[in-house]
C-alpha cells in the first residue's frame, strides 16, 4: 500500500472561493486531513458559482466547489459569535496548518491574529492569503479575482500581440490569479512544514495574491530596472508565426525560435518558392516583415487542419500546438493515456471527471479518497467524536445558528 506524504497532518481551512481552498486541496491530495469551516446556511461562496450540474443552481453541485474541495471534511461554524469563536480556537489548538483568508483588519478585530493563536498552539503554521498581504497601504483593500489579476500586472500584458490598444487589458481565464495564489500559498506552507519536521517550530506565512501573480511574471515585472522599458500587451506577441487561423475556422500555434526550426518549417511546407525571398532569409528580416510573412503562412495553414499541423508538424521537428478547449482536453488521447482526468463519485452528481494532479510521485501517489463534502457533512464527526461535545450540546449550537 503506497503511503501518503502528509498522513497525520491536520489542516484547518477557514477560507472560501478559490485561493485558500485550492491551497488546502493541494495539501489534501498529499494525504493531509483538511477540515473546512463554512458559514452556517450558505457555506463557501464557491457553492453559488457555476458550473452547476444541468445548470440547476444547487449549492451541492457547483463544479467549481466540487473540484476545489474534494478530499476535505466540512463543518459549519459562525466564528463571529463568542461560542463559535471558542470552538474555532479549539480547532486551531489541534491543527498543524491553518489556511485563512480573512483580511488583516478582520483578523485583528476578531482576535484571530497569529500572535494570539500561537499562544494556543506554538507549532502552528498559519498561512494567511489576502489580496495585498499583511502590510503596506493596500493591506485592507478589497479585491475580487478580476482586481487581483489586474493589480498583479498580468492583465496589462493580456491579450498578447494586441494591435488595437483602444480595447482594455484583460484577465486570463476566470480565476487564474487565484489559482496562482493558492499554489504559492501551498508551496510556502510545505516549506514551513519541512522546517517544522526538524524543529517543531511553527510560523506565520503572509501571502499576497498580487505578489503571487507578479511572481509568475517576474521577468516582465523587473524589466524597468534593467533598461527602463515599459511593456504592454501590444509588445507581448511573437514577431511572426504564433497563433494563426488554419482550416475549418480553427487556430493553430507554433513558434520557430531557433533557425533550425524555421528550416524545418520550410521543409514541412514543401519548400514554397516565397521562402527563398531575401525578406524571409534571416530571423531579423522575418521579424521585420512579420505581417507579410504571416499572410503567406496563413494561406498555407488554411489548407491544413489543426490536428494535422500539430502531429505532423511535431514529427517534422517544429513545435506546433493546438488551441484546446475543455472538450479537446477531456477527449485528448494523450490525456487519456496519462489518466489526466479522474472520476470522482459524489452523492448528488454521480460520477464526474475531474482534472487530476499534474505530478506523478513514484513512491507516494496522490489520492482522492472522498468527494467534496456536503455543507456541514462532518459536523457530527468533528464536534462529537473529535471535540467531545454531546448530542444535546450540538443541537443547542445548531439552534443558536452557531453550527
Amino acid at each position: 500500500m503506497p503511503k501518503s506524504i502528509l498522513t497525520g497532518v491536520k489542516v484547518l481551512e477557514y477560507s472560501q472561493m478559490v485561493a485558500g481552498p485550492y491551497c488546502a486541496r493541494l495539501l489534501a491530495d498529499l494525504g493531509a486531513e483538511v477540515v473546512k469551516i463554512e458559514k452556517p446556511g450558505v457555506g463557501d461562496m464557491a457553492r453559488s458559482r457555476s458550473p452547476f450540474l444541468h445548470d440547476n443552481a444547487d449549492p451541492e453541485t457547483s463544479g467549481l466547489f466540487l473540484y476545489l474541495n474534494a478530499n476535505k471534511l466540512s463543518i459549519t461554524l459562525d466564528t463571529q459569535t463568542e461560542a463559535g469563536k471558542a470552538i474555532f480556537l479549539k480547532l486551531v489548538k489541534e491543527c498543524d496548518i491553518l489556511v485563512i483568508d480573512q483580511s488583516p483588519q478582520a483578523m485583528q478585530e476578531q482576535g484571530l491574529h497569529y500572535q494570539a493563536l500561537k499562544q494556543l498552539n506554538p507549532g502552528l503554521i498559519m498561512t494567511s492569503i489576502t489580496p495585498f498581504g499583511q502590510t503596506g497601504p493596500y493591506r485592507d483593500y478589497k479585491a475580487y479575482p478580476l482586481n487581483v489579476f489586474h493589480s498583479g500586472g498580468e492583465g496589462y500584458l493580456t491579450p498578447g500581440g494586441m494591435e488595437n490598444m483602444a480595447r482594455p487589458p484583460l484577465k486570463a481565464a476566470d480565476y487564474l490569479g487565484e489559482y496562482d495564489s493558492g499554489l504559492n500559498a501551498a508551496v510556502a506552507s510545505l516549506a514551513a512544514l519541512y522546517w517544522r519536521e526538524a524543529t517543531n517550530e511553527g510560523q506565520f506565512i503572509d501571502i499576497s495574491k498580487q505578489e503571487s501573480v507578479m511572481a509568475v511574471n517576474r521577468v516582465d515585472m523587473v524589466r524597468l530596472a534593467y533598461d527602463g522599458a515599459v511593456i504592454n500587451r501590444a509588445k507581448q506577441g511573437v514577431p511572426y508565426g504564433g497563433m494563426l487561423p488554419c482550416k475549418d475556422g480553427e487556430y493553430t500555434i507554433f513558434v520557430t525560435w531557433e533557425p533550425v526550426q524555421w528550416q524545418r518549417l520550410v521543409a514541412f511546407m514543401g519548400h514554397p518558392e516565397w521562402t527563398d525571398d531575401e525578406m524571409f532569409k534571416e530571423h531579423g528580416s522575418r521579424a521585420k516583415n512579420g505581417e507579410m510573412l504571416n499572410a503567406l503562412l496563413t494561406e498555407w495553414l488554411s489548407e491544413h487542419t489543426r490536428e494535422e499541423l500539430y502531429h505532423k508538424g511535431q514529427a517534422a521537428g517544429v513545435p506546433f500546438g493546438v488551441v484546446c478547449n475543455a472538450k479537446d482536453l477531456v477527449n485528448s488521447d494523450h490525456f487519456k493515456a496519462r489518466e489526466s482526468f479522474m472520476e470522482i463519485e459524489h452523492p448528488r452528481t454521480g460520477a464526474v471527471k475531474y482534472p487530476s494532479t499534474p505530478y506523478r510521485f513514484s513512491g507516494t501517489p496522490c489520492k482522492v479518497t472522498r468527494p467534496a463534502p456536503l455543507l456541514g457533512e462532518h459536523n457530527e464527526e468533528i464536534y462529537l467524536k473529535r471535540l467531545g461535545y454531546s448530542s444535546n450540546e450540538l443541537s443547542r449550537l445548531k439552534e443558536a445558528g452557531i453550527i
Partner: protein
Amino acid sequence: MKESRPLGALSGVRILDFTAHAAGPQATLLLAYMGAEVIKVESSLYLDTFRREAAEVLGSKRAGLSWFNPLNANKLGITLNLKTDAGIEIAKRLARISDVAVDNFRAGVMNKLGLGYPVLKEVKPDIIMVSSSSHGATGPESDYSGFAVTMGPLSGLSHLTGYPGGPPTILRHSMDLRAGTAAAFAILAALIHWRRTGEGQFIDLSQREALSCGAAESIMDYTMNSRIRSRNGNHDEKMAPHNCYRCQGEDKWISIAVSTDEEWQALCQSAGHPEWARQEKFRDQLSRWQNQDELDRLIERWTSSHTHYQVMEILQREGVAAMPSFSNEELFNNPHLRERETFVPVPHPEEGELVVLAPPWKLSRTPGQVHQAAPLLGQHTEYIFRELLGMSQNEIARLIEKKVIY
C-alpha cells in the same frame, strides 16, 4: 557557503539543477529562495536560451539580463559538457552529494544522456528526481516539444482568454513560471517525505497538465454539462459592473468589480452619481448584469475624467473593489510594494546592482534572503569542483582543457 544569513526553511538541502529557459529555473529559484543550495549546470555547448538570446531580443546586454537574472538569483553556476563521458561521470558525482535533481528537458532526454532516475538512484539511493516536461513522461505526445507560447493554447487557458467573440490569445512567460511553481510544490512534498522516511522518489510532471488545472471550472462544465466555455473578456457570470475602464492618461485602466447591492450603492455615491442607484435597471445584481453594457458606458464616462489612482482611492475608501491594471512601471514605483520590499536589488559581478523580485511569501521564522545575483557562466567552478568534489587545481585545469568543464 558559509556566511551567516537569515534562516531559510531548506537550509542544508542541495539541488542539482539541469534546467534552462523558464519553467525549470522558476522551480529551483523558489527553492533557492528558501535557502537550498542550487547548483545550476550549464554548458557553452548549449547555453540556456534565456542567457543566450535575451540580449539580442531585448536589444542590450543589460536588458537581456532581465530574463536570466530574476530566474536564477541565489544559484551557483558551473559548466559541464554532458556530451562527454567525463562530464556524465562528474554529474553523477554531483548527484551523489545532492538531495534533489531537477530537469526540464523533453521526456526521455535524461535517460539518453545516461542520467536517468535508475542511474542517479544507483549513485544516490535516496535521491529525489523531478523531470518537468511539456507533456509528461508518458503518453503518445510525451516526446513533443513545447514552449510557453504553445503551452497556453495546449492547456486550455488561451481558449478562455480574449474578448467575447474574438480570437483566443497568446499567453507568454507566465505559462512557464506557473508550471515551475507546481514543480517546486512537488519537490517540497517529496522532501518532506524524504525527511520523514529517508526515501527518495521520481516525479513525472507534465507542464501542460499543471496549467490546465487553472481551467478546472471550464473542464468541469464540460464533464458535467457537455458545455464548451469560451472567452468572456473581463466579464463575470454574475457580477456587474465587472470590467476594466479607461482612465485619464495614455493606456491607463481601472478594474472595478461589484458583487453586492451595498457595494453598488457605495460606488454610485462616491462617484457622485446617486441617480444611478435609483435606476430600476440597476436595482439588483441580476438587473445590473443584464444591463451591464449600458452600465459600463456610464462608469467609463466617470472614470475617464479621473486618474486610475484617484478612482482606486475614491472607491476603496467606501469598500468597493477597484484596482488599476498596473503596468510593470507602475508596479516598480508603487508605494505599497515599496513598503513590502517586493523588488530587491542584488549585487551583480558585472552590472552593479540588478533588481529581482523578492520571494512571493513572507515566512516569519525562516524568511530566507535574496543574497546574490544569477551566476555568471561557470562562476562557481572553484567552489563546486574544488571544495565540494575535492578536485585538484591541475585536475580542474585538465578538464577545462578537454572541454569537459565547458
